[in-house]
């Protein structure tokens, strides 16, 4: 009874986790200019300047910022594009 209950709980959690979206995170760094990061977010993610600026300032002030969330494959693509522009970007599973 206990063993069966544990197994069921584990499976349920795994299903939930695989359904969670992925996020693209940009880290603050001492080299990239704020205006450049804004430009990069506009170029790669297609954001308006206001949104890109808000996200950039969040990364600047807190050290990191989630800039996009969704399917894993698209998140990898965006992270790669941002890295190609020399931004410290990575993907994470949404929490």
């Amino acid at each position: 009874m206990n063993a069966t209950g544990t197994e069921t709980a584990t499976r349920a959690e795994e299903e939930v986790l695989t359904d969670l979206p992925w996020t693209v995170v940009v880290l603050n760094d001492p080299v990239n200019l704020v205006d450049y990061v804004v430009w990069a977010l506009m170029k790669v993610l297609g954001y308006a300047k206001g949104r890109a600026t808000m996200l950039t300032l969040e990364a600047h002030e807190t050290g990191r910022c989630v800039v996009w969330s969704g399917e894993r494959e698209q998140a990898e693509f965006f992270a790669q594009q941002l890295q190609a522009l020399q931004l410290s970007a990575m993907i994470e599973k949404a929490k």
Partner: protein
Amino acid sequence: MKVAPILAGGLKIEAEVPEDWDVLGCIMQDAVAGAVDLAQRLGSRMRKADADDWETYVVPDLRTEFCAQVSLVEEAINSAASASGGGPGVISIPAAEVLSWFGALNQARLGLEERYRFGDDGIASLTGMNATRRSGFLRGRFYAAVQEIMLTHLM
């Protein structure tokens, strides 16, 4: 040295004295200083489960792209310096190459940061710096100023 956008959409850098070529030549040296492998460093940000794939499929492309940026800048500077005989001369940067120049300057600033750890040092801290560090600090400011011109007028 003068740096200005041109009507055709690119940028020109005018070297006015022989020393300007030395300053421009520092871009390449600073970009490789400290043995910074930018592609590797960016790839290392990925979570452990993805790191190997990223290292295999993404990092080599990034490395090739970053090396190409520095090579393009090196060729343009050497070519213009050679054409001017080391005297006054002009580097013309077409609009299509602005992003490569921006990337090379970013790598140069990254190399300087790796070496000297300026962080948020302001201009006021110059008096406490030795000559080598001060020179690096000023080059970093110059590179950033060129980048700002690119961002404002060309990107």
